């Protein structure tokens, strides 16, 4: 696997608090990678380190094999759409395209104009008067028309209404289909990630809880329900991610590469949302989360 982002022991500290601590991960090339995790997991810090907006306090990070923002060439290879998709409020849409053309040698003016046309944006309109969705689309257009090899987006749709969110992600997908670039996208909206991502990383407290291809993840996780049972007695190869028990019944979310053969279990597939939540709620030390239910004795 070639990594577009490779981090090792990466840390960033603001005075005494660590925004990211000892983070080690590899994000594969040619994928649309979703980075999901609770607030404060370090997603934004990680992505801002990847584009060189921040410098690490410790550890290393390589983006496309080089240190972030190392020079004009490296900057040209990586596109970034920051949280809240900032644009210059006083500059017009056309001015933004001019900015892109002036500052990027690889600028694809056709692509930019086509996208602006498709979106129905008035080039003379000031960016400050655009809707949130239009602003996000303008920011995405700037990042795409620079023709990067890797596009990093930090919660680009968090502030958008469902329709604008869908249109934004659709635009992103079209770009992937057309140009085949690698994408890293952070979000806490699992449904959005499911729509666009083919690779998923769950990050909690700077640590990768699970990473893998979306289909493989869904295929290797199962929800089991059956008579009450001690999770410690599960066969090897079946890792309990989440458990909940009543007097008579056990509900488990497990990961296994093989089939579940025990006929006592009723096996159901898991949704991505359940999978992500299970990993997010699992304590950082790896013990399964114990889901308490009303009236449960455990």
């Amino acid at each position, binding site marked *: 696997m070639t990594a577009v982002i490779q981090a090792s022991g990466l840390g960033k500290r603001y005075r005494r608090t660590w925004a990211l601590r000892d983070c080690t991960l590899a994000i594969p090339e040619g994928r649309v990678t979703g980075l999901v995790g609770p607030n404060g997991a370090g997603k934004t810090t990680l992505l801002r380190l990847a584009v*060189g*907006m921040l410098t690490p306090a410790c550890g290393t990070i390589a983006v496309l094999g080089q240190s972030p923002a190392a020079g004009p*060439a490296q900057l040209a290879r990586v*596109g970034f759409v920051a*949280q809240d998709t900032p644009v*210059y409020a006083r500059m017009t849409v056309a*001015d933004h395209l*001019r900015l892109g053309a*002036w500052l990027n*040698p690889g600028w694809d003016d056709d692509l930019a104009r086509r996208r602006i046309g498709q979106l129905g944006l008035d080039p003379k309109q000031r960016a400050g008067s655009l809707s949130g969705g239009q602003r996000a689309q303008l920011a995405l257009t700037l990042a795409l028309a620079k023709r990067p090899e890797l596009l990093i987006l930090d919660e680009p749709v968090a502030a958008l209404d469902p329709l604008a969110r869908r249109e934004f992600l659709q635009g992103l997908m079209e770009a992937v289909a057309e140009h085949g670039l690698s994408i890293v996208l952070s979000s806490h909206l699992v449904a959005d990630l499911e729509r666009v991502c083919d690779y998923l990383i769950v990050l909690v407290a700077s640590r990768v809880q699970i990473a893998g291809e979306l289909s493989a993840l869904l295929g290797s996780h199962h929800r089991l329900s059956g008579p009450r049972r001690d999770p410690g007695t599960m066969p090897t190869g079946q890792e309990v991610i989440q458990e909940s028990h009543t007097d008579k019944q056990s509900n488990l979310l497990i990961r296994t590469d093989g089939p579940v053969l025990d006929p006592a279990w009723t096996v159901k597939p898991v949704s991505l949302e359940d999978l992500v939540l299970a990993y997010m709620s699992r304590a950082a030390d790896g013990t399964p989360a114990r889901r308490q239910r009303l009236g449960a004795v455990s």
Partner: protein
Amino acid sequence: MIRLSLLQFRVQAITAAAALAAFAILLATTGPHLASLYAASGISGCQPAACEHLASNFLQQLYTAGTYWVLYLLGVMLILLTPAVIGLFWGAPLIAREQETGTSALAWNQSITRTRWLAVKLAVGGLAAMAVTEAMSLMQAWWAAPIGRAVGLGGGGTNLAMGRFSSLVFATHGITPLGYAAFAFTLGVTAGALIQRTVPAMAVTLAIFAAVQIAMPLWIRPNLFPARHTIVAITALDNISLQQGGLNGSHFDLGALNLPGQPGAWLLFSEAVNAAGQATSTTPAACTAQADENSTPAVMACLASHGFREAISYQPASRYWAFQWTETGIYLAAALALAGYCFRRLNRRLS
């Protein structure tokens, strides 16, 4: 990047151009009349003995009329304020506004390094700041040339009679405005980079710049070159201030306002010394009686007859340009140091 920088500088450039135009119109509409007053005063082509008197009359006339005195002060104040305004409104937001609105993430993720981005921004803003301030200074210098000539000829007696070394004149003429503008601008940029919020950065910029501009004429400028010291006879002084206090004028304070033989010199300090060469403010008993008559010449003559002389510390007029260059150099060096710090900070520690 230069094109983007100019595009983003449009509003400031238009504002500055409008302000410059307004200033130019104000001076252009009043300047010719001031020049005609000067021509009518008979100073040009005056007999050397009469020049000083004519120059004083001219200044007195302007001062009494009021308008030109007010315009003169207004122009000087605007030139002094311009660097501060530029530091506040061009300098402080340069990085801080990008950080506040998040557009730094947009600007610094194009295919251009932050160093280049800042270099162009600093160059465009800094050069514009220097050009605007110096343009105002030159326009004011043209307008106030008659006043300057009258003062140069020894005209005195009013508040208008400020020599080239006086704080207000020195700081608004020559090349010092260039240094102030560059310094104030980079000071604003640095404050913005450090604080990352525009309004607090503006406040800090104003506070520091004001403090520097007060400290410079009061404590730093007089010591840029070692002062010269001289002791002259009291009778040789032709422009003095004498204050008497205490019972029967038992104490006095004699200050020289110009130095004979050194026209245009910058007097830093002067005090009376007795026959033994010691500084003293005690009026000799023989002279206290003179005080009752409230007659300055009588007191002066008496002091002189008791061996009193005046010790004067000064900077000669010939050092004017040395002072100008040195002070401008200090401000430019400070501006460069601040800019260097901004480059380092932008590349290493921004969040």
